[in-house]
């Protein structure tokens, strides 16, 4: 650091007052640090992007071309035949299944979580609601993997095995704890006076919930929906154990099937992964901010 102070070059030598020296040196130090941090940042970028880059370029290569070209070079001739193959392999059905499962789970899950969160905040002090809240908090610690066997049993008993509802119902349940936590923290921030004035106007709790709390909670509702949507869209275990026939497969399960089906046709496998990832990446491009807060919902601010 000491090298900064002496001999500023040429005519300006006399100009800078003494007090400038420390600030300059600290700025210099900052820049040095940026080199270290920056280098690290770019390396990590490479680590993150390389597999994705490989995936996308490979998906546009012909199978023959793939084996004879440098795997890191983009194809000289783009082909869509891999995508065509994936789409012809019932992709639309798997995609539709995933859409049904995701929408069918997040809409009711968000709705009932919002109602529960509203009740927990507005009915604070009620012993039953406190118990409910306690159970939801405890629920945050229950891993889905550990309870799949009884869930499987329940689904069999309900005669829902191998249906999309079989995936939807437990997905709703496991979306509840975190959704309620995030939403209730949000509703708690609504000023008490607003609730009070609604009450003075003679609004019922039901009316207050929809006309006051619901619009004010919208950002948190979107966050919670996105968080749950990504989780359910990508879910693998529930479809794996609760369905059996290919007609009921969702995308992650279908991907695993594609992989065995296409075998050494690496470009086709790459196309299937790319195609299933596009919807979420598009969503990310549109609502990045919401999505980021969505995926870290509930953890630190």
């Amino acid at each position, binding site marked *: 650091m000491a090298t900064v102070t002496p001999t500023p070059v040429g005519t300006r030598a006399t100009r800078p007052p003494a007090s400038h020296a420390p600030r300059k040196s600290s700025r210099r130090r900052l820049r040095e640090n940026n080199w270290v941090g920056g280098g690290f940042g770019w390396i990590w970028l490479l680590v993150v992007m390389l*597999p994705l880059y490989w995936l996308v370029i490979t998906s546009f290569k012909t199978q023959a071309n793939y084996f004879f070209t440098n795997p890191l070079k983009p194809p000289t001739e783009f082909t869509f035949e891999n995508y065509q193959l994936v789409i012809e392999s019932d992709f639309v059905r798997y995609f539709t299944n995933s859409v049904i499962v995701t929408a069918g789970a997040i809409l009711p899950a968000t709705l009932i979580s919002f109602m529960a969160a*509203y009740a927990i905040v507005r*009915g604070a*002090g009620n012993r039953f609601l406190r*118990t409910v809240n306690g159970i939801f908090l405890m629920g945050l610690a229950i891993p889905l993997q550990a*309870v799949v066997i*009884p869930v499987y049993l329940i689904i069999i008993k309900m005669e829902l095995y191998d249906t999309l509802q079989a995936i939807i119902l437990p997905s709703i*349940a496991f979306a*509840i704890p975190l959704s309620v936590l995030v939403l209730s923290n949000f509703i708690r921030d609504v000023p008490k006076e607003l609730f009070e004035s609604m009450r003075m106007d003679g609004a019922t709790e039901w009316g207050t919930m929809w006309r006051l709390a619901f619009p004010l909670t919208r950002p948190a509702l979107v966050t919670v929906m996105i968080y749950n949507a990504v989780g359910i869209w990508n879910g*693998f275990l529930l479809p794996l154990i609760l369905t059996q026939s290919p007609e009921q497969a969702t995308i992650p399960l279908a991907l695993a099937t594609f992989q065995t089906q296409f075998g050494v046709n690496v470009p086709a496998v790459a196309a299937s992964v790319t195609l299933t990832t596009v919807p979420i990446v598009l969503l990310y491009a549109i609502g990045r901010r919401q999505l980021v807060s969505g995926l870290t919902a509930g953890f630190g601010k």
Partner: protein
Amino acid sequence: MTTLAPPVVRGQEPTRSSGGRSGSVVWMALPAFVMFVFFGIVPLLGVIVLSFATWNGITPTIELTGLTSWRAALSNPSLPNAIWVTFLIMALSWLVQTPISILLGVFMATRTRYRGFLSVLYFIPLLLSSAAIAITYKSLLDPSFGIGAGLGVEALNQNWLGEANLAIGTLIFVVSWQFIPFHSLIYQGAVRQIPHSMYEAAQIDGAGRVRQFFGITLPQLKYTIITSSTLMVVGSLTFFDLIWVLTAGGPGDATRALAVQMYQQGFQASLMGPASAIAVILVLTGLGLSLLLRRLGGRADESQLEGA
């Protein structure tokens, strides 16, 4: 559980807070409560009951057979290996992810445009399903058709998923690739909350960047480290999708962690009893570890985990 609901719904005790009529809102919590009890709490109790029962998962006969299933699960010669693999994955993935996540979090916390841009790209792995990630790496690392063979680079051309030690290492790498973005986001948020004045004071005292990092940033991140570590450690107990698609527990049993062992016992070997016993072990281990880490961190981490 059912005994909880009826008496209290009637009890319209005045609330301590703003005077909301709690009785009229109680029912609003019921749909979520019933749903969660039915598919969350009942299965949690159910898995304990099933661990004392015998069931093949296909026929409807479930017999309570006492400790038979526990004995079968605990005396299974592959259990010690499964525990060891689970521990190995937990420890190694923590060791790899934590320093990188902290550094990335600190890096991302500075608000400049290019760092913001990089953060956008870092985030992408979080959007992919474990199945998609596993399949990508499986193809990418394939010894005959993957990138190593294609580039003709000897060092890259290993049987990454086919040799025991390499497979564990590869798995740790893929896990880190998938989850570091999430943890670095947590650290990014925490670093931004460190008061700027602390750094200014340190600068006046002549502390360099490295000393500032170890003297201010790291200690200030203590509770975040505990939160993030809890999520990592407890989360690693339940890695299933990724391992299942990537290696299916192989080669041999090199990556057969407890969650995989549970699935294989239950849904492939039709031994739901012993599989439930493994599930109970998983729940208890997770609970124990998170309590232990919470103890380590003192009381304050609670608010960090639960504050939205």
